[in-house]
């Protein structure tokens, strides 16, 4: 399966595919070009993608790809055994981080079923806000190819889109070819967090130089602002000039543009809505969309946060019946899944768990949270720690060291990830399977 050694070797894969699927954000661009495999170099990629593919081997990190137990380097089998011991002793393990793809999540679910673990993703705050809105009222949404070919108005609420999804405008808004000869889209930013120079909305300037409509407001004011938009959409008269500093006339303009559009798309990023009961604001956005669809065509596009959150949410749902933040009980009789979007959060469970398994295979810079409980990290080979976990098992990076499958932010599309090089790093699934094997005997 893999070599059990204490040094890291990377050789390039003999077959070099030319196009790659980039897992570095929820757009999952699969047009990224591999120029050389050793070292990995890419083009047609954004800076985020270049960082993901190219900063994956670091010669100045002597412990790159090397397992450790209690901070001391060791071999893989010893590390796996130490991790198994921790899980065997644990009654309430927490599997968190979950930075992985479909196959990795499948294996973690099997291990969770066996050990009675609680599962939560590192970016679940945003996921859960959307899920709660979905569970309260449902929604009407669209997907990337529809945006590319139909959207003539893009309303971005509380997000600049590009900070989290860099190639959104390049690929889906300013495309010159579209199926139905749609006009160049109008872009509206409502309460997008603006950086000092305002340059984060530059992606919304059309190639011909048309400026986007930028309506500044603090993100925390969105509940009031969206409620007002809903009131206007329902034909209510609001006898005020402004809401939370936003002129009522601006909101009227937004509404008119949404109604005049052939196909308007409303984009939000739930992870940006960092205030209490933000799920109600998501719900308010989806209600606005539902109202407009009585007569027009408008669709929502919820952004995700990355590190495999959409893949993990989907895989969890079909395997257990429940989306992110669930756990298994009744381990002896096969494992019964339970769901609690609040109580099974990492934050809540860190206080109760007696072991933490932290997973981050895409990202070297997502360390585990501090906890008194014994901590196992299965992660990116370039992870470095200020406080060493009890066990560190470096594993292959999906889309570099092994194949896999990932879901795009719209959940409609799942794409295969390629393997670019031969490393002697095991995959997360292989490590998890090995732990399961030891636990079963």
């Amino acid at each position: 399966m893999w070599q059990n050694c204490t040094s890291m070797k990377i050789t390039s894969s003999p077959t070099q595919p030319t196009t790659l699927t980039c897992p570095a954000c929820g757009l999952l661009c699969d047009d990224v070009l591999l120029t050389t495999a050793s070292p990995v170099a890419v083009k047609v990629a954004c800076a985020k993608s270049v960082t993901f593919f190219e900063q994956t081997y670091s010669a100045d990190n002597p412990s790159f790809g090397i397992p450790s137990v209690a901070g001391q380097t060791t071999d893989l089998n010893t590390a796996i055994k130490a991790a198994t011991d921790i899980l065997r002793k644990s009654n309430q393990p927490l599997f968190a981080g979950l930075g992985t793809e479909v196959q990795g999540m499948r294996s973690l679910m099997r291990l969770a079923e066996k050990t009675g673990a609680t599962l939560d993703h590192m970016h679940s705050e945003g996921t859960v806000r959307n899920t709660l809105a979905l569970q309260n009222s449902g929604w009407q949404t669209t997907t990337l190819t529809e945006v590319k070919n139909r959207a003539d108005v893009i309303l971005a609420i509380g997000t600049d889109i590009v900070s989290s999804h860099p190639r959104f405008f390049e690929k889906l808004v300013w495309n010159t070819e579209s199926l139905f000869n749609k006009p160049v889209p109008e872009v509206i930013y409502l309460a997008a967090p603006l950086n000092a120079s305002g340059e984060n909305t530059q992606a919304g300037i059309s190639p011909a130089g048309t400026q986007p409509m930028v309506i500044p407001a603090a993100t925390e004011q969105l509940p009031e602002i969206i409620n007002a938009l809903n009131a206007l959409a329902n034909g209510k008269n609001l006898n005020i000039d402004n809401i939370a500093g936003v002129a009522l006339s601006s909101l009227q303009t937004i509404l008119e543009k949404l109604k005049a559009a052939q196909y308007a798309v409303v984009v939000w990023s739930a992870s940006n809505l960092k205030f209490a009961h933000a799920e109600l604001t998501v719900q308010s956005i989806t209600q606005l969309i539902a109202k407009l669809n009585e007569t027009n065509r408008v669709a929502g596009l919820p952004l995700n946060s990355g590190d495999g959150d959409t893949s993990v949410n989907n895989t969890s749902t079909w395997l257990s019946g429940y989306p992110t933040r669930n756990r298994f009980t009744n381990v002896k009789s096969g494992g019964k899944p339970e769901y609690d979007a609040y109580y099974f959060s990492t934050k809540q469970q860190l206080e109760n768990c007696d072991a933490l398994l932290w997973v981050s295979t895409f990202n070297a810079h997502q360390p585990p949270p501090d906890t008194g409980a014994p901590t196992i990290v299965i992660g990116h080979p370039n992870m470095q720690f200020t406080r060493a976990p009890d066990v560190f098992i470096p594993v292959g990076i999906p889309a570099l060291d092994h194949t896999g499958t990932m879901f795009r932010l719209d959940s409609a599309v799942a794409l295969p990830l390629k393997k670019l090089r031969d490393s002697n790093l095991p995959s997360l699934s292989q490590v998890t399977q090995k732990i399961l094997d030891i636990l079963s005997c």
Partner: protein
Amino acid sequence: MLTLLKNGKIYDPARGKDGVIQDIYIRDGRIVNKPSDTEKISRTYDLAGKVVMAGAIDMHSHIGGGKINIARMMLPEFQETRKYSEPEAHICTPNCSHDATPNTTDTGFRYIEMGYTAAFEPAIMPINARQAHLEMADTPMIDKGGYAMLGSDDYFLRMLAAKKDQKSINDYVAWILHATQAIGIKVVNPGGISAFKFNQRKLDLDENHSYYHISPREILKSLSTAVHELGIAKPLHVHCNNLGAAGNFETTLNTMGASDGLPMHLTHIQFHSYGTEGDKKFSSAAAQISEALNKNKHITADVGQILFGQTVTASGDSMMQHLNAKHANPKKSVIMDIECDAGCGVVPFKYRDQNYVNALQWAIGLEIFLSAEDPWRIFLTTDHPNGAPFTSYPHLIRLLMDKSFRNEAFAKLNLDAQAMSNLTSIDREYSLYEIAIMTRAGAANLVGLHDRGHLGVGGGADITVYTDQLDREAMFSKPDYVFKDGELVVKDGKVVKVTWGATHTAKPAFDISVEKDLKDYFDKYHTIQLDNFKISDDEISNDGRGSVIVHENKQPSH
């Protein structure tokens, strides 16, 4: 290793066997001839008095892909309803489960525990096919497969609008079958899912799509011809226009003529058999539909029976589901436009026996079942989970086989609905042989599984053994034994061994040059590469559990 099933009462319509006592020998997963006396038999099951049938095949059940996963996410409360009995569902028995959205493991387990050994996902959106196969790969015990949805995808609509020749359409359809690892082609509200994206809210059979200026009839003609000329077994699977709308039976009758006599399968026909008579302007058109079904030999249909209780409707028909969303119970729904490929609508629904419309829907489904003269052309489905969860099949079988049970249930319905149905005037009771046709031999024939659905020599040894009981619901809920590919996997209604099943596909020959134009289309308009649209065999088999079976490219006969 040789296994002997001894003295069972065999119901094998594919071989004309109606309750004959016969032995079955199994070797290496296959049914074999009686071996020579010198050969050692490793295991013998004495099945004296037991009913033996091939494993059942569900030819239409939403078991994999985005829609059901959306339903699971939206309705976590359903997971608590596994053994739930609701007051208004008083027709149900303890065997009924109301888990409309089981996880993949439960899906496989519940199917095999009822003696089903295969199920087909009828609405694989080509762009979402990878997810459908991922979910089906995680569904244990049973074989699976699916029908790829076409007819609202812009690539096809552009071809049709540009009057591309039939050969080009055929090549595209075949390419889709390969790329999505499907065994059949489905069309949902022909053209309507696309029309909804252009803000059209209704599309009749002869009405034009506002952008492409083509009608559903043209779409049906083109796709049914393609499927026929490619020679795959499964006829075009048709979800008609106007799903669920009062008066839609006329659309359904006209749709039967849209293929000019080429085979078509009209799915969940119960939902398309509504008239507009009576005070409530909603009535049964089962008589008209049944008459036409009996007459039109090129048409097959599955019923899509509703049963009372909580469920969720999950359909590719975003246009009609958007309209139905106002009846959502609980009040929430998901409507999606997807990838210039299709769409979906997920709307939870609670069928109540005291609701006039629901009660009549229940009666309409049964009227259709009981009026079908040819059991080879009608199939037992609830359109899981749209009419009811598949776990209610044993209950449905009893309704078909037991007239007094059926009439007792009918007597509890909404009184106005009772007045509008002639169900109690129908005396027919299905026989075990006819049930075996509907759920085994006919289904295998329809989908094109030549080595399943029968107990003849050479067949795959998917076999279900029941105790003959007067209570047919109890009987079909809990088989004594189920063999999957020759292995004993269920004993006394409980799984004793976990297996994973295979994926059935059809891969007719086609001209690969079709990819040239497709590549150009993908590069210009899509958001993924053409190569990533295609699902390789490895993706299905590389976890070591799944495998792909390719079925021969020819029409079956019985």
